[in-house]
């Protein structure tokens, strides 16, 4: 596992073919572009975004998440979102109308999850 591209706001870890991106900041209009940059820059087959420590996500953040997921999906990358229940992210995504079934409760679950096809 190597660490790359990490900064104060985003912790990015790569484990074998899995990249784990952990935002440690609010996802808003100020950080959304960076978030999207980090996520879409991932070339690993599995990209895990851990929202556990995200304190705030606004529409810009949601938009960035949405766009980046779409982007990666179009590239046939497996995007896994770690959104603990009762977290800010969980609440925000639900408010935004995301399908909660898409969320994984913990990073461990995300790391162990089998990739379909």
């Amino acid at each position, binding site marked *: 596992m190597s660490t790359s591209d990490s900064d104060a706001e985003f912790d990015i870890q790569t484990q074998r073919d899995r990249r784990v991106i952990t935002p440690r900041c609010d996802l*808003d209009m*100020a950080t959304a572009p960076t978030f999207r940059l980090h996520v879409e820059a991932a070339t690993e087959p599995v990209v895990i975004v851990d929202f556990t420590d995200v304190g705030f996500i606004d*529409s810009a953040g949601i*938009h960035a998440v949405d766009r980046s997921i779409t982007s990666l999906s179009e590239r046939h990358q497996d995007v896994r979102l770690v959104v603990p229940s009762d977290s800010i992210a969980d*609440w*925000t995504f639900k408010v935004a109308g995301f399908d909660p079934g898409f969320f994984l409760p913990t990073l461990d679950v995300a790391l162990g999850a089998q990739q379909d096809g």
Partner: protein
Amino acid sequence: MPTAPDPTPAESDAVALRERDGRYRLLLESTTTALFTAAVDGSLHPSESWEQFTGQPRSAYTGPDRGGFDMVHPDDRCALEQDWVKAVETRDQFVATYRLRHRSGEYRRVRSHVVPVPASDGSPREWVGAITDIEDELRAREDLDRQGEVTNTITENASSALLLMDPEGQATYVNPAAVEMFGYRLDELRKGPLHDIIHHTRPDGSPYPMVECPIDQAVEQGRPREPYEDVFVRKDGTFVPVRAAASPIQRDGERIGTVVEVQDLTIEHGLRVALEASSRRAQFLAELAGKLDGYVTVHERAQQAVEVLAESFGGEASIHVSLGGKLELCGASGQSPVVSDEEAAAFIGSADTTARTIDGRHGVFLVPILARGRRYGVLAVRTSGQPPGEGCLDDSFLDEIATRLGLALDNAQLYERERTVSRTLQLGLLRGVSARIGDVRLSYAYEPGSETMAVGGDWYDVFRLPDGTVGLVVGDVVGHALEAATEMSLLRGAVRALAVEAGPAELLCRLDAVMSSSPSDVMATLAYAQLDPTTSTVRYACAGHPPPLVMDATGGSRLLWDGRSMPLGSSATTERVDATAELGAGDSLVLYTDGLIERRGESLDVGFGRLGTSVASTGPFDEAFARRLTDRLLDGSTHDDDACVLAARIEAPGGFAHELHAAPAELADLRRELAVWLTSVGISGETANGVVLATSEAAANSVEHAYGSDHNGVTSIHAGIEAGELHVVVRDHGTWRTPNPPGDRGRGRFLMRAIMDEVSFEHDSTGTTVRMRRRLGSGADT
């Protein structure tokens, strides 16, 4: 006269005698017209004085045929001849009066006194006769008699009483008028000094000593007393007003009596008193009306009236007036009313409309007060001493007073009723304004105009609008009381209703429509301000109204001169505009009516200057702020117009305020501070998350869309809690641009709407305001 019939031998003796006794002769000649002597038989001796008087030649009368009788008037001749024959026979003197022809041919009445002159033996020797011309004397007497008759006729029939007093002051003669006037007969008047009989007492009952009597004083000094007015006493003890004059009668420098002329002035006095009374009445009524005009209410006027009456006529007065169907005591000059409520009611209800008294209440007189044909009240008067009718307060005068009272009181009641209705309306409108609406603290004052007849139509109102702003309005309806109050009520309702969906300018437009459809022809001015406590801004418009004032925390002030247009109801069509002003921390907004600053004969600038000065020294903003400001501005001056003040100040204890300088990176700070604030007010969990998210979204919208790359603009974020609701207002001042990409904006709005109960966007020339509201439950989410 006749010649002595028989001349006697003693003729020469007689002549001798006469000649001898010069003194005798002189005496005779000085007092008689003619002297003659005659013989015993009656034949006349020659007489120069006879001839001188009669012009008869001596030969004609000295003969034995008694030619002297020819000179006697034929009608008197026979009687005289008989007297003469008889005298000769009896030898007795005689006196005769007859007409003797004067040499002028005129018969003059003479008196002759013929005396026999005896001889030494006692037998008549001759006759001596003295003839006195008494014609002048008799004529004079006849004239006098004639004059006396006239005088008598005059005195006997004179309306003046004539009384003749002797030097002792006792009556010696009175004419019938005097008998009539005083009721005494002459013999009764003679029982003592006249003064003691008809002039002994003054009208006030005090004795009238004779030494003080002007007549007696004049008489005493022997001077006439010029006519003067006095009062005499009749036999029956009543007084008679008179004009009296006295003239002393003197003979040979000696006072022998006094004529007193007395003229009865009862009628003249009556006329004069009546005239004076009439003039006094007219004057009194005018004064009464004038005094009553100075008062407005029925009670004030009634009280004033009874005080005037009591003061002018003595005694006490009270007034009961039918108010609202019930007879009510409205004025009493004394401690207690002259008549009780029950007595007044019985009088009003009595079928006997001519009654003016109450049985058993001596000296109390009641008069109905009529107004518009009905018995409206009762004036009760208790006189002091003299009964009405004798003095000024007789029935007719009381009736006149009551008529005036009726008018004055009825008018007062009509006016009062109208004024009460308008005041009730006005006060009703002004009630229900609270000291605080949300974070807006309020202070207000209303001062009715002092000019009694002018009822101002000032009003104010404060209400909260659904978007969390506070509507403040101060208006002035120009018109007559009731109409103004009605219009005021209409306007107030219209403002409240229309303000929900219209900004200030739009509100005025719609009010124009309301006014034009109103039947009354009144004008109204108003200042409307929409105060946004979360953004500390005020959007305002003035329709012909003085500009709102903004006072800062240090007492400095400025007037908001923008957003001005014509008064409501003015015929000129006008474009309605509004303006927005920022309120700094600690600023207060003051709306007021012109009555607060306008003074007669003073320019409005002076008024504005005084307003600024007064505001600076009114002290801190609290509930009494407007009251103090009003008192300060109206202090010591007469203000005809209503004055009202409505002051507002945004105070948000525990409220949240944040400013964002259009840099996206600052949004995190906003959220953090907002979260801290939310926690401090007990909001946590999902609610807190949602509020933070929605607020951030709104702020981000401003930052991204309103400013674009221009990061110098400021976005203000205010949040507050009121009545179980959280309000968030995010306001920017940039030019709204069509957002790009549209997706973000759509998601942002979607989020805001998903989270908050209410979200609104408002764009105008000055920027964009996002208002959000969320109900706060009492349960787990708070």
